């Protein structure tokens, strides 16, 4: 085991980034013109990075498996984006945003990175407004803000319930401008299947052209991954269907350490599963908890009756209902952070008090708010969400309480990166949800968009110079060399292996089973016993996959089943590592709750003495990994127990 060096600059926390920026290495314009950069992913992080690097003069090649850069899953983010603008004059500041993020992350993130994030947050809003993003405004014409869970100021900027869409379109348009200028070459419908290392440095990728099946070699001076999170390892999540871990996982297999993979955010307010055919879950914005009250029946008998359709929630009087969040957490009530709300829902359902046919749902009831404020006010606040709910469930939430249940939403873990956002492979960088850096063990609402754009627009364009300044004498990398040939052969081998199995079970069926194991043993609450069982089951499933999966068609054609098979193969490896990481972390923190480590009242017990570190895993081949640690040093905040009671 080695101790990792995060290369955090010296100096006071609030000066680090400014000082570092002023003294870091630069690449001269004439050199930028010949330096090539590969960017994989066109979401907020990848898209913003590719556009900005091209504006600076680098030659950029950008890859996406989508048909268009505009389809990246950042598009689906609803709520908003945080920034320490203090436009509301309510006491916000860079330090406060930094502190809230560290605390919200349950003291498992790196101070210096989080502070930098808070600093550049203000630049993001300026940039997006300049691009023409139509943020919500007040009658005076200035930008509006709203508040979000876990904080006491209003610092969230938003564009109705489609903030992610508007920010992504801003980045997409900036990228389109650079494509038109010839500074960026777009490779759409291309999926990265391997990272290529030459003399220890990341120098290219192997990508499959998804239309023709051609396996292509692409070279550059360095490779940037903005490839998103891995929530789809659970099969059912709020992620888009095609979101996957493959690019990050392949980099991991080539030497990039994977950090804190067990940190998963389970969002408390999603529409529950309705049947075995379910393909994905839909988020209902967290903002609903501002006016909705969460409850289940007090008695199991009433729950049973509701599940069988013999009773309706409207039949239950006030004293037959258990508003359990208000009961257990009187000071925060329905607005406790995401991890706390999710676990509480699980507990009441485990007790058999869940509602809906599956027994896995709780009520989110707006009747009090409607009586108090009127239906019009509620409709103005949440109209579009109520419509989505009705479209999916066929139920009218104005008349009948919504049914909700937690679902996997975001992964805080990801590729380990240093202060420069460089992974443990020199020349390979990771941005946004693909890295692990800023959210610790739990992410606050409206912070994912902030981090993606911070990394892409305002961090990597500077820090990439630290690597590239030493590469100005490196000629263009040729793809006609051993490392590329080897990687290509390895990729072809993996594809041929999958096509040759010709078994009897679909890729989808394996993915569903993996997802169920992950949910049961590495989901909202975990135990050593369960995790060990999970690891065993995943290994067996992986063996079965390589014996009995059926992938129709060939490589040399448009073949979505083959794409899925390659992704599920990687999920089958990642899932095991997530369980191992969860097993190693003998404490409860943020999204990671170990049943053995809780107080008598069932609250999470953190262990700062033994676990205030980042767990970074080195791949030693399929199913084998070695743990390395980065100690987390807190020089500016005092570690406290989170309490929302």
């Amino acid at each position, binding site marked *: 085991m080695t101790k990792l060096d995060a290369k955090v600059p010296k100096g006071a926390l609030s000066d680090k980034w400014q000082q570092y920026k002023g003294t870091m290495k630069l690449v001269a314009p004439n050199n930028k013109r010949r330096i090539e950069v590969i960017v994989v992913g066109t979401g907020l992080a990848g898209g913003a990075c590719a556009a900005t690097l091209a504006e600076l003069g680098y030659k950029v090649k950008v890859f996406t498996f989508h048909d268009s850069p505009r389809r990246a899953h950042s598009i689906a983010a609803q709520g908003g984006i945080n920034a320490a603008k203090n436009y509301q004059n309510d006491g916000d500041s860079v330090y406060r945003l930094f502190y809230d993020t560290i605390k919200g992350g349950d003291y498992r993130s790196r101070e210096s990175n989080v502070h930098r994030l808070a600093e550049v947050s203000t630049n993001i809003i300026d940039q997006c407004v300049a691009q023409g993003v139509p943020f919500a405004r007040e009658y005076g014409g200035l930008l509006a803000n709203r508040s979000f869970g876990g904080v006491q100021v209003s610092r969230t900027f938003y564009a109705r319930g489609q903030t992610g869409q508007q920010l992504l379109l801003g980045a997409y348009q900036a990228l389109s401008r650079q494509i038109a200028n010839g500074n960026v070459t777009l490779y759409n419908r291309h999926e990265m299947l391997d990272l290529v290392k030459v003399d220890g440095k990341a120098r290219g990728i192997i990508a499959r052209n998804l239309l023709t099946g051609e396996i292509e070699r692409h070279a550059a001076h360095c490779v940037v991954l903005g490839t998103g999170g891995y929530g789809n390892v659970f099969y059912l999540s709020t992620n888009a269907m095609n979101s996957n871990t493959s690019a990050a996982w392949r980099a991991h297999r080539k030497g990039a350490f994977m950090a804190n993979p067990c940190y998963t955010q389970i969002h408390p307010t999603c529409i529950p599963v309705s*049947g075995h055919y379910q393909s994905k879950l839909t988020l209902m914005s967290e903002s609903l908890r501002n006016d909705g009250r969460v409850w289940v029946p007090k008695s199991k008998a009433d729950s049973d009756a509701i599940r069988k359709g013999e009773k309706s929630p409207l039949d239950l009087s006030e004293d037959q209902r258990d508003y359990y969040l208000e009961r257990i957490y009187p000071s925060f009530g329905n607005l406790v952070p995401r991890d706390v709300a999710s676990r509480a829902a699980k507990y009441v359902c485990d007790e058999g008090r869940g509602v809906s046919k599956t027994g896995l749902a709780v009520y989110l009831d707006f009747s009090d708010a409607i009586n108090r404020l009127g239906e019009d006010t509620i409709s103005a606040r949440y109209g579009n969400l109520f419509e989505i709910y009705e*479209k*999916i469930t066929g139920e009218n939430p104005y008349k009948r309480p919504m049914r909700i249940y937690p679902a996997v939403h975001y992964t805080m873990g990801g590729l380990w990166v240093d202060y420069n956002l460089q992974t443990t492979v020199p020349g390979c960088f990771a941005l946004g949800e693909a890295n692990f850096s800023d959210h610790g063990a739990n992410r606050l609402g409206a912070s994912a968009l902030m981090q993606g754009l911070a990394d892409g627009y305002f961090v990597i364009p500077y820090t990439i110079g630290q690597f590239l300044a030493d590469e100005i004498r490196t000629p263009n990398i040729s793809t006609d060399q051993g490392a590329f040939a080897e990687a290509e052969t390895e990729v072809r081998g993996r594809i041929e292996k999958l096509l040759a199995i010709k078994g009897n079970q679909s890729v989808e069926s394996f993915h569903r089973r993996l997802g169920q194991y992950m949910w049961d043993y590495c989901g909202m609450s975990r135990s050593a016993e369960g995790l060990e069982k999970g690891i065993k089951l995943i290994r067996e499933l992986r063996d079965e996959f390589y014996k009995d999966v059926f992938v129709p068609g060939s490589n040399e054609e448009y073949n979505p089943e083959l794409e899925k098979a390659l992704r599920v193969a990687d999920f089958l490896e990642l899932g095991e590592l997530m369980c191992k990481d969860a097993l190693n972390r003998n404490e409860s923190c943020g999204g990671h709750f170990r049943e053995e480590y809780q107080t008598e009242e069932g609250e999470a017990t953190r262990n700062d003495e033994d676990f205030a570190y980042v767990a970074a895993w080195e791949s030693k081949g399929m199913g084998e990994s070695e743990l390395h640690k980065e100690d987390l040093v807190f020089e500016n905040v005092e570690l406290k127990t989170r309490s929302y009671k």
Partner: protein
Amino acid sequence: MRLTLKVWREGGKYVGQFVDYKVDNISTDMSFLEMLDVLNEQLIQEKETPIAFEHDCREGICGTCSMVINGQPHGPMKSTTTCQLHMRSFNDGDVIYIEPFRAKAFPVIRDLVVNRDSFDRIIQAGGYVSVNTGQAQDANAIPIEKDTSSQAFDAATCIGCGACVAACPNASAMLFTSAKVSHLATMPQGKVEARKRAQSMVKQMDAEGFGKCSNVTACEAECPKGISVTNIAKLNREYMGSVFGSDKVM
């Protein structure tokens, strides 16, 4: 529910034809795409090639799903993408025709999947504000009327799915193009380049082989995001100004 599907198959062993499929035990709670998942699972069990269709977020925002259902892009429900359409909109025993979006500028790749790169090229022709990262002034430096910003949002909500093109008898991309022109021309930040933008985007739209607009307005009726044809009027105004106005750019 038991349904008969007549699905357009093209590529592989199919030259381009409707193929009949039967699906059984379809729950009314399923989404339309989940119903197709069930059919594809059935086909895989029979070692057949599953039907290719595009989809991603399944929340109605990414704009990836793109089929014509019983003659309507995204099916019968107003303001709804295919992924948000649920089977409770259909009846037991229904026969459902499923086809790709059809337009010269959207060539079919396979089955229900079409190539919409032409949309990206229209945006590349000018659908942006020319500002580099770091050049921006403070976000509150220019106040923008709430209604103005809200109007810009209404245009900017376009998901780029192409239903407008599929609905149009001329396969025109005027609604898509005008939504971006209108969004940016409405915001002060985008006004500076508005006329040049209108001209270059229209030029690219024509070059891609999209048809002309003849005011049928089927695009608005079928748009899953309710983008209004008043945006087309706005595009026309910007375009005419760019050709004939006192600040013409040609």
